[in-house]
């Protein structure tokens, strides 16, 4: 055999990665594709699904996954950028939902204005509410964020403001007057693009900006940040506001999707499910929680066939995920991806 035909295996990322973990040398389109593929491919898949399968059921499952994904990314961002354990998914979600809902119900404002307003106002109210609790750490902050949604739902239930237990019925749909596949597509692409925007923005803030740097430093060592002349409460508040934006948007969006806002928008599901999704997907990556949501929500839908047994199956699946992939699916996937090999001539 001629020497030139001797082949050996080589890891694809070997020539791309040089020495240090985060320095790359871009040599060709192939290597660029190798690096960008894991980012572009899932995004494209997500964008194509509603076009390929324009059935109401499929699209609604995608939408539900996106909603949980936005809440899960918020949880992950707060935990891994500033180290705040937030169980406040329901708080951000409910505030966004009720703000957008009431603006439309009482003042008749167009859904395309109430949604951004609900996002901003909801996130701002949430930040103001949590502001006094920001010096709290760990479990104490988590408890406060958990209590607020319960507090709001009980207040609405007891005083019958904002529609009371029935909720506000007859909120305007965001797709009124559009013909069939288009209404679905508008609904789907609005939330999909918002989800992707959240994903890439949060990742960018977390990894590449100096804001992320300061937040990370607070998580690492808040005493040294205080000694650096930085008001850490202010930065924590900023992080909460950033994280609350997508969640509040999800709330405002769902209000105009189902043309209704009610007590179930404060439901604990919106706090707990995103955390389960984060654990399954892989925490600290922002993309992991999103992946987790896209596994758990369709799984929950699929299990509906089993009637009341579904919760048991769901729980078993959760345990299986956590036992088999304790590092989180995305970390496992990314490790395997970096270990891919190809044949090269010696």
């Amino acid at each position, binding site marked *: 055999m001629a020497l030139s035909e001797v082949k050996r295996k080589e890891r694809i990322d070997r020539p791309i990665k040089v020495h240090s973990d985060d320095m790359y040398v871009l040599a060709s389109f192939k290597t660029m594709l190798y690096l960008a593929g894991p980012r572009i491919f899932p995004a494209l898949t997500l964008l194509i699904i509603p076009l390929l399968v324009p059935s109401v059921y499929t699209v609604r499952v995608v939408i539900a996954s996106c909603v949980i994904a936005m809440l899960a990314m918020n949880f992950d961002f707060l935990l891994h950028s500033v180290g705040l354990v937030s169980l406040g998914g329901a708080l951000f979600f409910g505030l966004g939902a009720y703000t957008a809902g009431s603006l439309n119900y009482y003042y008749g404002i167009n859904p395309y204005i109430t949604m951004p307003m609900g996002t901003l106002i909801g996130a701002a109210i949430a930040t103001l509410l949590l502001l006094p609790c920001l010096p709290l750490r760990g479990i104490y902050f988590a408890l406060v964020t958990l209590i607020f949604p319960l507090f709001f739902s009980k207040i609405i239930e007891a005083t019958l403001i904002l529609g009371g237990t029935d909720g506000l019925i007859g909120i305007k749909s965001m797709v009124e007057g559009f013909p069939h596949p288009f209404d679905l597509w508008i609904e789907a692409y609005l939330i999909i693009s918002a989800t992707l925007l959240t994903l890439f923005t949060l990742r960018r803030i977390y990894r590449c900006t100096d804001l992320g740097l300061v937040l990370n430093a607070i998580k*690492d060592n808040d*005493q040294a940040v*205080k*000694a650096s*002349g*930085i008001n850490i409460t202010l930065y924590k508040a900023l992080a909460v506001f950033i994280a609350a934006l997508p969640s509040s948007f999800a709330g405002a969006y769902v209000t105009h999707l189902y043309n209704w806002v009610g007590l179930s928008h404060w439901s604990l599901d919106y706090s707990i499910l995103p955390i389960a999704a984060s654990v399954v997907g892989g925490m600290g990556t922002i993309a992991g929680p999103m992946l987790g949501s896209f596994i758990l929500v369709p799984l929950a839908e699929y299990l509906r066939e089993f009637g009341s047994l579904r919760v048991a199956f769901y729980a078993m699946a959760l345990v299986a995920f956590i036992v088999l992939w304790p590092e989180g699916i995305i970390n496992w996937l990314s490790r395997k991806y970096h270990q891919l090999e190809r044949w090269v001539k010696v």
Partner: protein
Amino acid sequence: MSSQLILEVIGLSKSFGGVKAVDGVSFKVRKGEVFGIIGPNGSGKTTLINTITGFVKPDKGKVIFKGVDITGKPPHEIAGMGIARTFQTARPFLRLPAYKNPVVPLYSSRARKMFLGRYGDRDHVALDLLEEVGFERDSLTPYKPAGTLPHGYLKRLELARCLALKPEVIITDEVFSGLSAAEVASIMPLLEKLNMSGITLIMIEHRLRELFRLAERVMVLEYGVKIAEGTPSEVVGNERVKEAYMGTEVM
């Protein structure tokens, strides 16, 4: 003798439960001097610093910085006025590359005022600061994660974090602890240089020999109470101090 006061502490007290960690301590620090604080373990040196820099609220007493009462202000405001401090156990941001460490304080409003005309060159300022505290600029050291650096560099990193605030006073909490003799020898000239550039140094120290070479005046604490103050030679000769350090039997 320049007698311009920069920091004045009057009757500062702090107790934790029944323990009086700092008990009515008063002292004055003049601008541009090196002031040492020594004392046996548990004599309240670190608590004193924590109270001055706002990490712990004092029970009684006053801290006056350049004529302004700063007692009980939050740490970031005190740092923002120009009092920087290091921590006893070096606390850099371990997962960040070394040169990103001083970038964090460059985000404070004080650094914004003192340093940067325009946005975006914080990394350069940070690299300059690292060079100032003795990082080799052209090596890989400034780019390594802070957690992987040797101890001596971590102490330098702490000083760089302080310098990012363009401080008037730097309070060091046992900056020599855990360092080898060679490392101490290389940090000494750095501290001298900082002092020459007009920064007032307040140093808590266990290594008395090194401290006495730098400090003009030294204060001795025991059980939270000031037992002596004066030049190093005065303090060393003080009977009370000998007792505190070596027990009553003096050889």
